[in-house]
């Protein structure tokens, strides 16, 4: 294949110096600000200052990387050194599960959450061995283009479509999650955060395309790792006097185990529902652990925006090295994240073990509760906030408040409406005295007046906070850790800057991959074959604006990041990517006989199976179960329970019938971590790729064999990308 004979751009030769100045500069500024903090600087200025600094740096880097050359715009000139590309790749892909949901998953599941980490890092190995070097050598600009060169334009089109769907879903969920976080921590309105984010992303990415994306992400990684390390280091210092969280995490785990025993002894936790943090396979069984690891491995290896990232380097070895470096940077994250979850759990359990009455719940629970991410006995302080807001608009009692809230169209389910009637009445009553009250007064009233009612309703007569009362949404853990650190504005500032960085890194990656697909695969390939480089950049820019706006709109209109564990959605994204692209991509490189028919069939079959499994198990569990019982012999107990519940439902009448049906569906559908009867060998619904990927391979191979061989040019192409 052709080798690049142009000299490396000037900035590449100096990039080591630039990066060193950047890191040292950041450390200097943070040190300076800590001194200011000691001397009594205002918390808001410090926190806001760091966040603003980070934002300006990202914007600055993005704009400095502006370019008008097509090769630079789409592939960063193929001259990014592996070390920095590694930073960028890590930054682009970690936020997807790590910062936004994985801390919560690790918090909830303890050991079982490690399946995600194993899967993600393992995926990088798969990427490096099977895919990255060959896609790099092909010099394809986007993943669909690789499919186009290998299989022909129909497959390119299909791939482009699938890329747009997968990336769009991920982008929307990313923006929605950021909007939620901004709302919780900054107190901005959801709408403002979303549109602000969209605008910022556009400006940051548009000027330089892939070049901007790569360099801003490299810069963002530094903030991200700082943001993760700051809270954990502080917590580690406070608890064990040792700042190296990786070392003290073991002691934290021991502390959790001891506290778990204590809680059970004091009756503050129910032995049946308390899940020991360290016990393996308690909530996710071995099969699902492996399914999750498998799906994340294959999915990571063919996430559209990830596959192309090693391609911005100069040759195959650099591509492999970039992936290796990115795994190293991801490792730093992966080693710290379980410690993060462990320390947070330690603090929460400590609070509970002090037999705390509701009125004494520490205020750092308040922020997470305010965003609806933490609920105690099913109720959170934003329910009270909704009632207060409704009161001030004139509603006087519970029924009127309900009507008022229903008339608004909130972007997430109302906390007020989810309550039982006794709690609603208490909320309505308490809200009367709270118009124009400060957030801390609202929180106090919530603890003193609402929680006892909710607790009594749930059967907790002691008036103390118990372990089973607390329920977290996955994002809640991250917010909780930030609130806990409110004592140090610098730490909060760093965490905010890092969260901002994480979100920008992930979303800019998704948006750009969509934009380059639209600009390159759709516009250049299908609409205007003769477009010059400038035209292509222009088309991609327009596409970028379009997809950013569309993603923002999607985040506002219907998507709720709290409507199910976030891990679910991330899992689905990986599943779809794996099912769609992995068979076709792998066979494309490693089997010359694979042809366009096989690839297309494999992609469609994989996606179809994956979606059927998810939608069937999630939304039509009864039908799913009944269709498949014949094939998958479920054990006789399950079949018996099913028949019993079903006859209950058929014989019940009126309101009972609804309840009976719900019970039946719950049994068949399963819960977040436990597949119900309607499943294949107990695999959870978002991880259908476990079946879809082998199925896709099978279909692709069979169809390729029964249809004509690929052309000689294709074989030459495959030979070419295999050669060094």
């Amino acid at each position: 294949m052709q080798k690049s004979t142009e000299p490396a751009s000037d900035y590449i030769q100096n990039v080591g110096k630039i990066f060193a100045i950047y890191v040292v500069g950041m450390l200097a500024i943070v040190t300076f600000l800590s001194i200011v903090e000691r001397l009594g600087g205002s918390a808001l200025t410090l926190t806001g200052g760091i966040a603003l600094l980070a934002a300006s740096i990202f914007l600055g880097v993005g704009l400095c990387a502006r370019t008008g050359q097509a090769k630079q715009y789409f592939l960063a000139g193929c001259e990014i050194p592996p070390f920095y590309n590694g930073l960028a790749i890590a930054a682009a892909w970690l936020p997807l599960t790590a910062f936004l949901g994985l801390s919560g998953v690790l918090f909830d599941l303890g050991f079982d959450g490690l399946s995600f980490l194993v899967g993600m890092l393992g995926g990088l190995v798969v990427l490096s061995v099977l895919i990255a070097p060959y896609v790099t050598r092909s010099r394809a600009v986007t993943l669909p283009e690789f499919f186009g060169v290998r299989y022909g334009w129909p497959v390119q089109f299909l791939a482009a479509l699938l890329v747009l769907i997968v990336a769009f879903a991920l982008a929307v969920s990313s923006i929605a999650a950021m909007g939620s976080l901004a709302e919780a921590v900054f107190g901005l309105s959801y709408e403002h955060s979303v549109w602000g984010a969209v605008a910022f992303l556009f400006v940051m990415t548009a000027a330089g395309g892939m070049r901007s994306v790569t360099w801003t992400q490299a810069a963002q990684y530094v903030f991200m790792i700082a943001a993760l390390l700051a809270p954990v280091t502080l917590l580690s210092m406070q608890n064990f006097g040792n700042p190296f969280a990786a070392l003290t995490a073991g002691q934290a785990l021991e502390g959790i185990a001891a506290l778990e025993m204590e809680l059970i002894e004091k009756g503050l936790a129910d032995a049946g529902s308390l899940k020991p943090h360290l016990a393996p396979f308690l909530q996710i069984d071995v099969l699902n652990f492996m399914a999750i690891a498998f799906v994340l491995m294959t999915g990571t290896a063919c996430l559209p925006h990830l596959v192309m990232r090693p391609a911005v380097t100069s040759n195959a070895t650099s591509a492999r090295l970039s992936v290796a470096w990115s795994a190293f940077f991801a490792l730093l994250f992966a080693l710290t994240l379980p410690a993060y979850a462990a320390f947070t759990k330690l603090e929460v359990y400590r609070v509970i073990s002090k037999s705390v009455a509701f009125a004494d719940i520490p205020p750092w629970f308040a922020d997470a509760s305010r965003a609806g991410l933490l609920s105690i006995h099913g109720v959170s302080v934003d329910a009270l906030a909704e009632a207060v807001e409704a009161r001030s608009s004139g509603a006087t009692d519970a029924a009127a408040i309900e009507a008022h809230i229903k008339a608004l169209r909130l972007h997430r389910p109302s906390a007020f409406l989810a309550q039982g009637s006794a709690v609603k009445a208490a909320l309505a009553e308490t809200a009367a005295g709270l118009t124009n009250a400060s957030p801390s007064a609202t929180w106090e009233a919530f603890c003193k007046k609402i929680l006892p009612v909710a607790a009594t309703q749930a059967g907790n007569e002691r008036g103390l906070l118990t372990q089973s009362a607390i329920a977290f949404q996955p994002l809640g853990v991250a917010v909780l850790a930030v609130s806990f650190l409110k004592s140090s504005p610098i730490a909060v500032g760093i965490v905010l800057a890092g969260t901002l960085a994480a979100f920008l890194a992930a979303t800019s990656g998704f948006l750009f991959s969509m934009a380059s697909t639209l600009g390159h695969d759709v516009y250049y390939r299908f609409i205007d074959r003769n477009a010059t480089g400038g035209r292509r950049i222009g088309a991609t820019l327009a596409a970028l604006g379009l997809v950013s706006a569309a993603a923002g709109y999607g985040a506002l209109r219907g998507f709720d990041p709290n409507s199910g564990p976030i891990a679910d959605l991330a899992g689905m994204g990986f599943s779809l990517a794996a099912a769609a692209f992995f068979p076709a991509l792998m066979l494309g490189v490693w089997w010359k006989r694979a042809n366009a028919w096989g690839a297309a069939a494999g992609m469609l079959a994989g996606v179809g199976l994956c979606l059927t499994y998810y939608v069937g198990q999630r939304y039509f569990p009864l039908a799913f179960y009944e269709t498949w019982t014949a094939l998958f012999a479920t054990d006789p107990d399950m079949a018996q329970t099913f028949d019993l519940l079903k006859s209950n439902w058929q014989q019940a009448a009126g309101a009972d019938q609804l309840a009976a049906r719900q019970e039946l569906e719950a049994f068949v559908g399963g819960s977040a971590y436990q597949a119900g009867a309607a499943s294949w060998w107990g695999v959870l619904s978002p991880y259908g790729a476990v079946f879809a990927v082998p199925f896709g391979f099978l279909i692709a191979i069979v169809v390729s064999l029964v249809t004509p061989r690929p052309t000689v040019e294709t074989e030459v192409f495959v030979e070419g990308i295999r050669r060094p």
Partner: protein
Amino acid sequence: MIETVFGLLLVLAGAGVGFGLTSSFIPVPIGIGGALIVASIGLVLAAHGVFRQRLKREGTDTHWWRTCGLAVTILVLLAIAGFVVPAFVPLLNAFKIAGFPLGYYVTAVGVLIGFVMILFWHAARSERIDSLEKQAE
């Protein structure tokens, strides 16, 4: 040749040990586990022997065979680290290291560091294979 034969013998030995001795002398999980390990080592040796033979023949595409061989090796290591190790975690959790239960530690730290090491080794080894090919041209 010798390697292949030796490997095949090991596979047979593993099977024999596993199924023959297990029920009488050794507890089932250890017996089966041990047999599998011995058999796998045998398989790897046999495959390696076959691989070496193919390389020696004239006209084989040595570069591609080497690349494939490396890829298979790495994927096998990946499978072991990612799937086999977690299956043994309950067993390992009985021991403690630096306050961590060993099973948890191996999965949370060992496996992940292992992946990173595999990646760097893969890059170095591939570079070596590619440069051999370039020298041969």
